[in-house]
């Protein structure tokens, strides 16, 4: 079976904030995941699935079920940690779907039932969390996810480690991944704890501009009629985006944050009254990733202003019925503290 073609990332129009957030997460996984919340029919899952096709490859240990990479300092899986120099190769960075209706045993991993039945052998079969290690874990309709799975995710996302104690198995393995969730707020709110886990949060809405809407329809229509040809025609643009990610990944560690910029960022967080330091850290980290994507050596005020809505939107003190949306509040604060 051939895998169905995916709509190219570079052909997505009118959703620049969502694309920016995904590129930042691809550049620096430590930003901590992306939540895309908003109206239907805005290409939320299209964007995530297409990002998967242009992520740069990574080097991983051959046949390691946990995608251990040779560079990682600690937290190699027991097999890779004990062996000498492991054989590695380039593999696509995993983007793992956590589909609705998944059961807990497949998410965390469990006893390999087939082996157990046939050979009476107790062997651990790694689950989705293992497969997503060093990659992305994507949950569509994240607000429909069952509570016990949310608990598991919260645990693992906080510790970066998956601990399995079931059926007489006792396994722990590293599971660090970028959590990407999407959903529609009309189906129910997200649990605050889970909301907090996401580094960036994006609100998407349908484009209102007629000419953009017409172009979207035309592009999508072309794609639906001949996906292979369409993807071929957009290949070069997608490749350019991939190169941009690769360059940014190389550059991001060297990007500096000048003190005045850092002070401004703190002032912004103070003005908005965000809880804790996490917001400020995410703000700086994503601003650095954005600077790296732009090919800049240092973070500028402009970078902070551009990532402020996605980094802080979900961290404002919750006043769920405030009619002024979080986005508007942030834009106001940005205008007052950053741009005078």
């Amino acid at each position: 079976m051939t895998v169905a073609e995916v709509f190219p990332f570079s052909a997505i129009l009118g959703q620049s904030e969502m694309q920016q957030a995904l590129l930042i997460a691809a550049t620096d996984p430590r930003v901590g995941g992306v939540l895309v919340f908003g109206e239907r029919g805005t290409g939320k899952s299209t964007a995530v699935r297409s990002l998967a096709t242009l992520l740069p490859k990574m080097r991983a240990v051959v046949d390691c079920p946990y995608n251990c990479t040779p560079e990682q300092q600690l937290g190699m899986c027991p097999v890779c940690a004990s062996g000498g120099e492991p054989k590695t190769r380039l593999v696509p960075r995993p983007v793992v779907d956590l589909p609705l209706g998944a059961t807990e045993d497949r998410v965390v991993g469990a006893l390999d039932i087939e082996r157990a039945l046939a050979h009476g052998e107790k062997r651990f079969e790694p689950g989705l969390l293992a497969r997503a290690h060093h990659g992305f874990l994507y949950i569509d309709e994240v607000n429909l996810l069952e509570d016990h799975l949310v608990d598991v995710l919260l645990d693992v996302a906080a510790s970066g480690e998956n601990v399995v104690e079931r059926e007489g198995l006792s396994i722990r393995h590293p599971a660090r991944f970028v959590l990407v969730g999407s959903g529609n707020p009309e189906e129910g709110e997200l649990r605050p704890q889970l909301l907090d886990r996401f580094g960036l949060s994006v609100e998407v809405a349908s484009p209102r501009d007629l000419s953009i809407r017409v172009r979207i329809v035309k592009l999508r229509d072309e794609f639906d009629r001949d996906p292979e040809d369409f993807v071929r025609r957009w290949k070069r643009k997608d490749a350019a985006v991939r190169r941009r990610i690769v360059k940014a990944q190389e550059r991001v560690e060297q990007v500096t944050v000048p003190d005045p910029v850092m002070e401004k960022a703190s002032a912004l967080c103070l003005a908005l009254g965000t809880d804790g330091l996490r917001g400020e850290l995410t703000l700086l980290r994503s601003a650095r990733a954005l600077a790296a994507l732009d090919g800049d050596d240092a973070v500028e005020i402009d970078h902070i202003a551009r990532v402020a809505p996605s980094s802080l939107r979900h961290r404002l003190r919750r006043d769920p019925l405030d009619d002024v949306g979080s986005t508007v509040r942030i834009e106001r604060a940005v205008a007052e503290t950053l741009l005078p």
Partner: protein
Amino acid sequence: MTWLQDRQGLTSDALLAAALFAVQPVPVLLRGGAGPQREQWLALVQSLLPADTPWRKVPASVSPGQLLGGLDLAATLQSGRAVAERGILAAADGGVILVSMAERLNALASGVMTSAMDCGEVIVERDGLARRSPARFSLIALDESCQPDESVPSALDERLVLRVDLAATGAPSGPLPDVNQVRRAQRRLAGISVSDDIIEALNLAATSLGIGSMRPVLAAVASARAAAAWLGKKQVDQECATIAARLVLAPRALVAPQPPEAPEENQEAPPPQSADAESRDPDSDGKSMDADKELDEVVIAAAQAAIPPDLLNQLQNTPQRGGRGESRFGSSYRSRMRGRPVGARRGNPADGSRLHVIQTLRAAAPWQRLRKSANPNLRRRIEIRGSDFRVHHYRQKSQTTTIFVVDASGSAAANRLAEAKGAVELMLADCYVRRDRVAMIAFRGKIAELVLPPTSSLVRVKRSLARMPAGGGTPLASSIDAACGLAEAVRRDGVTPTVVLMTDGRANVTRDGTGHPQQAAEEALDAAGRFRGLGHSAVVIDVSPRPRPVAESLAATMGARYLPLPFADASAISDAVRSGVH
């Protein structure tokens, strides 16, 4: 299928939709109860599709497990190794899935379906199995809803392209489509072009109907192309665009259309039949393509004309038609999932708990060799002992649904409605933190109305609060009855209801809707007595400027706590309710 020839009852639009579906299968919403029309339509569609097309019927109560597939237990036990069972979605690859009573589908099952529709494949991660299999199916949702608060789950609804209302009356016209026509149209389909003007016109039509999402517009363009193929045209023209506007866009209208120019011209939409006649006018195509504006207007007019006459009324009366978020069934299903299933534990399935089959197998698996070697005479493939039994184990979290019953009558509205709304909002902020659900019943005029089914979505709460109209009489008895009904429904779902009644206690409309203060007051007390019998916890907040014995005695009869709040503001009400209830 000779009775197909007798095509009475199927409107020309229904016939056209069947033809378009056959040319290019897309998800369809078929509205209307079971009956000869529906059978006819389905038989017609089936006769137009290739004979070997898979055709799977799915009940609304279908579980995600059935849709996705999982471990085939019988086969697994037989063979002694894990055997996967194909789910309904994968089995329907290349065919059609028929969902009966789609308005009762729960949100989770609908989510499973829509993600398969979007990707064209099902991804299964269940019962120790990981599979991907193609699932390119089209779907016919049979919507039999008759209550305004029932509707197809919104995620699925959004993806249903063609909409056929079987209840619509219209002249049965045009010959029945036949298979050869369909084949010819399919061959033409790939070569049909769509101009920018058409795309723009369909976009404008969508926005004028309040449709923001891009999906219906894309669907309309694709349907216009199918219509062009069906009508034997080389490109999509005005006629095809109007067909798409009528079949795809109009039934989704959220607001009465306002054309970009001259909004005052169209106060009343003409009945659908006349539009039909217009758009079929043979000399309308070709000539009118000269001006874009004209095209836009014609398409918008066609969409307007085809809006089902009762749709906008429904939209006005019940702000969240069918609760766009979750159906009733969805809410009960999800609350069953509330208690965290803390996996399985050792136990005896005989004492009423559910056997967890997979976990039992897992528990037994490692011992099979040992047990077989200890007992070689047994020829059973798998030996399961009592100690292997695992049962489902749930931890029940106490979950509450707060039901606000708000007096929106003229007397209450005059001074207290704003405070009541404020209190509801503050309570909501509280409920949000605890992930409780809220529901709201407003009563005014002659009836009590469920303006908000139990939900945890703040977006919807805010919307319905803002839209709540006020004024009119006080049908207190009906409102208490409605609260009883809803509280019982909530309790049946395993959730604890709490009723907050905000009123001045002055009933003046009876259950049958007539204004008779004394009888109304008696009925209110009678309803209150019934409420007490059910034993739900409740608070009555007296919102009249001066606390009066009427409301106090009502509270006493209801077995509710009475809180007179003559001049309290919103936050005081909220505090009082919180301390009174929790």
